[in-house]
């Protein structure tokens, strides 16, 4: 080494001196962008190595992070899984809250619309026995609950009160093996007794083989048991098998469809009509025509204050011409001479042509406003669409009584029943 340095000492010193002066130059000289050349040189000389080093470092770190240090990924996965689980629990909790709010709203709505007097209660506990289908609710004798009262939800019946305590009551669910209730089918009116079986499905007993029960048909309470008022949903027929001596009709209870957190205890039951079957092609109710269509039409036109149309005027002209020529429209073969029409001004008013029974053509605004149908809210449980056409013409008649336009005995009965039910409260 020493000999090498001695041999090339001069050239080495030369390079060192030149290099030193180049550095001196670089310190002084500035580039076009007013940056010292030494900085430009330094950056130019350093950056490729720095880039290579950074690439090596980044690659190495990435390699170690992605392939070697997998425990970090595993820990992060665990953390993310925990977070996902926590979010799922939050989601379930919020959904439950939402469902609870929906159920409470539905319960309150049902409680307001049902004719029966009910008492809202919350299920606070369930029976201790494995086979016993009983629950406890937070209403007891202090709230007026008595043994034997029906327990329902907006979806249907759920059971009955079998024991009452001061602050709570025990409910025997309809799936309990000891439960029984009188039921009636919706479509064919087949009567039977719903019995719990200790399973989710119930059995409608005492249905003879000759009676027709269809799968998918709904059963409602018949009111015969003096516990459940008539007209509450019980369940849907899932299977029908002939048996001896009665059919085996299995029914899925509908009262548990949306859970059983809140229930209604029927304090005073009011019987309801069994709703008719909703078919795809439901027959449309057409009301009977009013006794005097022309009178009603002219009366309606007069009361509405509407001016006679051009057709009315033309018809009045033709009728006047026929009367003047002694022609009765629809009779005889010789038509009236339509060239001898009276002057338009001499023709009677269309309303008068319709009948002199026209009412004064200045009805009060209150009369022009159609009075609401007198069908009670109970009619809402009966086929609504059938009542609308009945009330429609009457309402269009601007104040004509509904009974006059819709002499439907069934509606009358419903209205009477509803009023009596309402008064029953």
């Amino acid at each position, binding site marked *: 080494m020493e000999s090498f340095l001695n041999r090339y000492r001069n050239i080495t*010193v*030369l390079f060192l001196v030149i290099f030193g002066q180049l550095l001196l130059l670089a310190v002084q000289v500035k580039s*076009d962008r007013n940056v010292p050349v030494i900085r430009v040189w330094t950056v130019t000389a350093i950056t490729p190595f720095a880039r290579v080093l950074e690439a090596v470092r980044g690659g190495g770190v990435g390699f170690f992070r992605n392939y070697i240090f997998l425990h970090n990924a595993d820990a992060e996965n665990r953390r993310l899984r925990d977070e996902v689980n926590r979010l799922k629990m939050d989601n379930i909790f919020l959904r439950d809250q939402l469902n609870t709010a929906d159920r409470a709203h539905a319960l309150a709505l049902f409680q307001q619309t049902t004719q029966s007097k009910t008492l809202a209660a919350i299920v606070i506990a369930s029976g201790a026995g494995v086979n016993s289908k009983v629950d406890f609710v937070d209403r007891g004798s202090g709230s007026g609950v008595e043994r034997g009262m029906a327990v329902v939800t907006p979806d249907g019946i759920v059971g009955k009160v079998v024991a009452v305590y001061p602050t709570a009551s025990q409910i025997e669910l309809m799936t309990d093996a000891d439960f029984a209730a009188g039921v009636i089918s919706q479509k064919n009116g087949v009567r039977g007794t719903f019995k719990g079986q200790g399973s989710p499905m119930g059995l409608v007993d005492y249905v003879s083989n000759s009676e027709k029960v269809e799968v998918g048909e709904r059963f409602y309470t018949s009111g015969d048991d003096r516990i459940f008022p008539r007209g509450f949903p019980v369940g849907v027929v899932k299977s029908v098998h002939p048996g001896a001596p009665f059919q085996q009709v299995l029914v899925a209870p509908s009262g548990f469809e949306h859970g059983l957190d809140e229930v209604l205890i029927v304090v005073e039951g009011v019987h309801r009509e069994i709703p008719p079957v909703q078919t795809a092609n439901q027959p449309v109710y057409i009301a009977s025509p009013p006794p005097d269509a022309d009178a009603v039409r002219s009366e309606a036109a007069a009361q509405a204050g509407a001016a006679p149309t051009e057709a009315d005027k033309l018809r009045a002209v033709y009728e006047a011409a026929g009367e003047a020529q002694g022609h009765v429209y629809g009779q005889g073969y010789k038509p009236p001479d339509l060239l001898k029409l009276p002057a338009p001004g001499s023709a009677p008013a269309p309303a008068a042509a319709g009948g002199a029974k026209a009412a004064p053509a200045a009805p009060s605004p209150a009369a022009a406003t159609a009075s609401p149908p007198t069908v009670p809210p109970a009619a809402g449980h009966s086929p609504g669409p059938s009542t609308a056409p009945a009330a429609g013409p009457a309402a269009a008649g601007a104040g004509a009584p509904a009974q006059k336009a819709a002499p439907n005995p069934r509606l009358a009965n419903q209205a009477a029943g509803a009023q009596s039910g309402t008064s029953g409260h």
Partner: protein
Amino acid sequence: MDYPGGRVLLSSQREGQSTHYSLRVLILVPLAAILFQVYVPQFFDFLHFLELPMLVVVYFALMRRSQMGGLFLGALVGIAQDSLTTKPLGMYGIVKTLVGYFAASVSVRFDVEHNLIRGMLCFFFYLFHQCLYWVMERALLGHQPPFEMQSWLVQGGLNALVGLALFHFLDKLRSST
């Protein structure tokens, strides 16, 4: 110093003997050359072609036959010359460092006492000095100086003539050993 047969090339490095100068000469002569370079042309504009500092460096490098001495002398003279110009320090320094180094390197092969050799070396090193400075000015400073080879050739010849006279004068300043 005379060599037998009037040869231009030396047969061996041992034939070449270094010449010694006093320290005062080694300091004052370059300083005088630099002063002349910056002072005299202000009054005699035609003397701008003279490059006395380079000639001094060449002379001492040739006569001392020391590469180390030549490059350091060239560096010092060049930086001193740079400090008296508006150019960045190091431009003349680098050029004269290389001139001193190469002159000292050449001196071991040539008979530097020969006038023809001295004249040719002065001419050659002047061209080398000018060309290298031109290259550095373009490369390091980003300037666009004109490439005046014809002028450089003429000036190189004139510097060679002046160098011959200067070398004869400097030969009188040798130390008597």
